């Protein structure tokens, strides 16, 4: 999790927060703290924290394994154990890690789950994933089925269904595991802090409207969303982290600075693009560098909305605790139907004055990928802006073909430049 050139204070703080969390997990057996495994989209961190339970997010572990160059080995191991080549590599990476001793990203052994919270938002693979873990750990499992926003809005029936499951299934399960009674005021307190941090996060993400953009909303963005998407939403630490981050970004805007890339600050913003789809973790820096080398900044991305679509207006609400948790789960990006996803992309293209759209499609993730080509065509049709398509994977390095991606990216940016050169000079975006 290092960015070469200059480390901001917020960055340091974030690293420390995460390290501390893993250390705490490492000590959980001795300290007697209980942990709950769950997923990023639709995570119920506030609720877990209200029971003093520690969240463990296998997806984050998988992506960290990818970044640390461990995923190939883990995936290989899972495949040896009979997992198919065809399926989501997050799952395989996680299973491989588990089978190799469950050593987390900071070298600590992760505690076994006291509960598997199968909150099933936006992706059917989650269901299989925890069924698999359940066989390994023989841990109690509670299902929270979050219906799909098939018509682009949350229906009262869906909300009612989720709330009923929270009340009658999830909360009792958490009470059993933690041995504590549910305290709604504690939850409200968490939610209040969440909402504040969410305000600051949205401010940061929207700073990309500036020219030059002070942030990279994709490669940089994944760092910014870290705390709020994982174990920290609703905590005081998260609140402080986002305040600090906001101040830093404000400073960069004031100085007219661009984002910091793996090679240092981006000197000249030549292209502004929107990216749809998750990044590749095994060659994250290389991938980022390919953009930076072309002078391309990602001004908005959908991946940074998988753990909540705060910029579209959602906030956790202490006054409607369970309902707002339900709405949160229902509103995560991959739980939106394709027409809505297309609307979001078109809105980003416009709002962030982007030159074009790039879709990064990962083999792992049907939830994201199945339909991206149709989305791409629709966005092109509506905006008339150049679109491009890249393919690799989340954590399986075998599917990251650097030469191929570079080739496509180069062609894409040359295409954007050529198109811009030919266009009557209305809004050339290079300063």
């Amino acid at each position, binding site marked *: 999790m290092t960015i070469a050139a200059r480390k901001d204070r917020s960055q340091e703080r974030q690293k420390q927060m995460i390290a501390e969390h893993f250390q705490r997990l490492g000590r959980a057996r001795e300290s007697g703290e209980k942990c709950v495994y769950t997923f990023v989209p639709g995570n119920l961190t506030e609720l877990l924290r209200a029971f003093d339970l520690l969240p463990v997010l296998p997806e984050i572990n998988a992506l960290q394994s990818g970044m640390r160059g461990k995923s190939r080995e883990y995936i290989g191991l899972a495949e040896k154990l009979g997992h198919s080549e*065809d399926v989501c590599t997050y799952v395989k990476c996680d299973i491989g890690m588990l089978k190799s001793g469950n050593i987390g990203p900071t070298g600590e052994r992760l505690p076994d789950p006291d509960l598997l919270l199968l909150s099933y938002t936006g992706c*059917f*693979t989650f269901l*299989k994933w925890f069924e698999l873990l359940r066989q390994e750990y023989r841990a109690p499992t509670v*299902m929270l089925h979050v219906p799909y926003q098939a018509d682009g809005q949350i229906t009262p029936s*869906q909300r009612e*269904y989720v709330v009923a499951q929270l009340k009658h299934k999830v909360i009792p399960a958490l009470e059993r595991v933690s041995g504590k009674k549910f305290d709604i005021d504690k939850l409200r307190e968490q939610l209040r802090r969440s909402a504040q941090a969410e305000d600051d996060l949205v401010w940061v993400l929207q700073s990309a409207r500036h020219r030059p953009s002070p942030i990279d909303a994709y490669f940089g963005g994944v760092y910014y969303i870290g705390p709020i998407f994982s174990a920290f939403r609703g905590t005081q630490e998260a609140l402080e982290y986002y305040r600090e981050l906001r101040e830093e970004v404000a400073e960069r805007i004031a100085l007219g600075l661009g984002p910091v890339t793996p090679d240092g600050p981006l000197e000249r913003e030549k292209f502004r693009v929107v990216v749809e789809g998750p990044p590749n973790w095994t060659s994250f820096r290389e991938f980022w560098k390919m953009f930076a080398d072309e002078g391309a900044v990602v001004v908005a991305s959908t991946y940074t909305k998988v753990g909540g679509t705060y910029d579209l207006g959602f906030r956790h609400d202490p006054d409607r605790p369970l309902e707002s948790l339900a709405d949160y789960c229902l509103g995560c990006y991959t739980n939106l139907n394709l027409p809505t996803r297309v609307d979001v992309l078109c809105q980003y293209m416009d709002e962030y004055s982007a030159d074009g759209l790039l879709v990064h499609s990962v083999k792992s993730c*049907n939830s994201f*990928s199945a339909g991206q*080509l149709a989305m791409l065509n629709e966005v092109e049709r509506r905006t008339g802006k150049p679109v491009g398509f890249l393919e690799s994977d989340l954590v399986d390095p075998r599917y990251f073909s650097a030469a191929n991606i570079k080739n496509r990216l180069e062609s894409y940016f040359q295409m954007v430049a050529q198109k811009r050169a030919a266009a009557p000079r209305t809004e050339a975006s290079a300063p």
Partner: protein
Amino acid sequence: MSASRVQGIVERAEDLCRDLRLESVRRWKEQNGGLAIGFMPIWAPRELLRAQGCLPVGIMGGGEDVEIIKGDAFYQSYICHLPRSTIELALGGSLDVLDGMIFPAICDVIRNLSGIWKLRFPERLAYYFDSPQDFDPQIGGAFLRRELEEFSHALVQRGARPLETEALRESLAAYNANRARVQALYQLRRDEPWKVPTWELYLLQRAGLVAPVEEHDRMLDEYLAAIRADESRRPLDQARVVLTGSFCEQPPLGLIKTLERAGCYIVDDDFIQVGRWFKNPASLDGDPLDNLVNAFLRDSLESPTRYEEQGNKGEELVRRVADSRAEGVLFCTPSFCDPALLDQPMAVRAIEASGTPWTAFKYAENNGQFQVIREQAGTFADSIKLFSEALSP
């Protein structure tokens, strides 16, 4: 004589299956005037559709007969084949006769296909039908009931008859009767697999996806009578196997034939489950909508796409193997099918624990090359045969 009768029925069924432009559905509409509603695998509330005067039409992808010209514009190579052939059919106008499509909640691919439908065919009914993974009548049951009611309402808005209690009850009864026939055929195949080759049974079931239920009943009855009378079908020295993993995208017919020719009797399978979805007849007493909901919650077939509350993944498969006296299991799954492939390790674990041999392979609905699979299945059957005690020639 009866051999040719069987052949005639099977050919009729095959014609229905290969009727990609759904001419039979067009004729039904002309005669009956109701809505024709397509549905994707695995389960859809056919009882409700019928009660509202609609014809449910199962769309299991395009199969081997559809050449993909435009469908690949929608799907990357690492996504199963079914959605691309389905969209190819739609773009080619084959599905124009349908007044709507149901996309059941089974996986992300079909879920997102519902969105593609909305983008491409905004004027058509594209209904994502969510079924609960919570099987508590008060929670999941209540949700499913609301889903059904909303769906029923959507049908009415498209011109279907409103839902009436009696009609629904009658419909439950009609499907109970149809399921009983299909289940009887499955039972017969289990007992005397040489009488009911799987590829025939498969075609008959597929015919049931497009034919109205009464017509399908007649077909099944005729077939049953014909094979009972057919003396020419004698047992062969073949291995008894259960086939699993093919619940959504369907294998090409050639694959099923290849497996049988390579020495396997398929004595249980999970093809086209919609026709057998409820293990027992749905109750006809009381509120039929509740009965439908309860049948779904409590009496559905196990499937990788359904959450297993007790965490006993694979047990059901072991039971099916025992019930059908199978000697082995074929995991026969579509490539890139996440639900099937992620389920497989759990099922394999249970099967191994039970001491049953198994083998696994993947297909796509438009595969035309079965060499590898033939060899694999053949070897599997060889080894069961060479090492079983009864070495009858």
